[in-house]
């Protein structure tokens, strides 16, 4: 099954993400996912200040500055992994370096609209 690992950060934490230590930890984690053969894809996201939100209402495009909702925590990165079940997904989520600071939301992917890898859904 494929799962998304959604990493949420408090606003102030976004500044700390460029610390050498955080970068090294993030890279090592990505390499571990790859070495285990479970990584489908993923990326870190720039901070909420850089976000622009688009919607279409009554045929008119509306563009707003900022993220979809004002919250205490913002989506900071996503990873998609392909593992046998939720327990394995939770193990990987717990190893994410950000798990020690914030929390990682684990969600199964809903089937087929977007292709996430060449691998078949198990």
């Amino acid at each position, binding site marked *: *099954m494929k799962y998304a690992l959604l990493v949420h950060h408090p606003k102030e934490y976004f500044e700390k993400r460029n610390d050498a230590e955080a970068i090294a930890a993030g890279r090592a984690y990505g390499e571990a996912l790859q070495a285990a053969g479970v990584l489908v894809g993923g990326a870190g996201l720039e901070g909420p200040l850089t976000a622009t939100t688009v919607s279409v209402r009554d045929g008119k495009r509306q563009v707003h500055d900022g993220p979809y909702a004002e919250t205490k925590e913002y989506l900071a990165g996503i990873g998609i992994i392909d593992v*046998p*079940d*939720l*327990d394995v*997904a*939770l193990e990987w989520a717990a190893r994410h370096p950000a798990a020690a600071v914030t929390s990682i939301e684990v*969600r*199964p992917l809903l089937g087929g609209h977007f292709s996430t890898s060449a691998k078949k859904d198990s």
Partner: protein
Amino acid sequence: MSESAAHAAIESVVRGSYGRLVAYLAARSGDVAGAQDALSEAFVSALQHWPSDGVPEKPEAWLLHVARNRTIDTARRRQVKQAFEETLRLAAEEAQRAEVSREEFPDERLKLLFVCAHPAIDVAARTPLMLQTVLGVDAARIASAFLVSPTAMGQRLVRAKNKIRAAGIPFTVPEPPEWDERVSFVLDAIYSAYTTGWDSLNESGTTHQALTEEAIAMGRMLVQLMPTEPEARGLLALMLHCEARREARFTNEGVFVPLDEQDARRWSRAMMEEAEQHLRYASTCKRVGRYQLEAAIQSIHADRAVSGLIDWKEILLLYEGLVKIAPTIGSQVGRAVAMAQAGDAASGFAALEAVPRERVADYQPYWAARGHLLHLLGRTGEARKAFTRAASLTDDPALRAHLFNRSEHLPST
């Protein structure tokens, strides 16, 4: 055999097979709701055919066979079941092999219990989910026992089953270190079902009473599924000791009788002996836990049936151990009372005073214990107030009457 007796016999076979079949099917498909749907038709069919044809030699294989055929019929009409069809077909083949080779039908209820106790499942849904999937207790009855509306309970159960399927929660028995945590969830859930039934035993007849029986049935099953887990035996022993006293807990007129005033001749010897057996076995495992200690405390109370005495010093020792492992308000209050009963009311009262007051504001046993200890210390006026407060904190009318009675009839010391 009369028809109703036949029906009852069949219902008990069906009941016994229910959890095993749900577990067996769901472990293969990951779909608890689908397993329950497929089986409900098979059970209806069993109730129609078995009274005349007799109970088949391998009831589980029969039920699975019917579930499979019915589901294939309905799958054509209901697309949602199509995904389940393949699982059922494979399961039915597997069951047929088991039937021919006379192998035991695999019992995967333990896996199902662990799925229900998975940390990804809403805590409030775990106990109801176990009762419904493993024992087949219906949602309406669970709802009434847990004081929520049947609709809300139904939704909670559906959500939990959807999550099991959609999130891909695995049907596995976890290994250490997860084992300990998950086992303790399973044990706590069973105990919570028991206390939910027990607390309201006096209120409204059969549904609650049945829930204590379901909990004990589940405790027995757990011991059967993991015979070397001492805490499972401890929990079963604890429930059996409490259950043994059911008759003696109220007089025929419905008046509440506190434990040390109960007529020990009304206690069930058979249940007490069964409890003792499990406790003895558990002690050979050399791994003490919360439920074994609580059961051991009840065991000393039970000893009064033989010796006529209560060894409060021994009870105090056990509470000391319990407070170390599980420092709940309940165990702290129990220890304070044991101190007083063992002869040191002043220390017992000091121990009560040490419990943070904000945590006991609405905890009835604390105020009853406080009343009792103040009475022992000769502080009658304060004792009266504590008993009154305890009385106003219980929703059990018989217990309320008992506490008011103690408040009013305090002998001046």
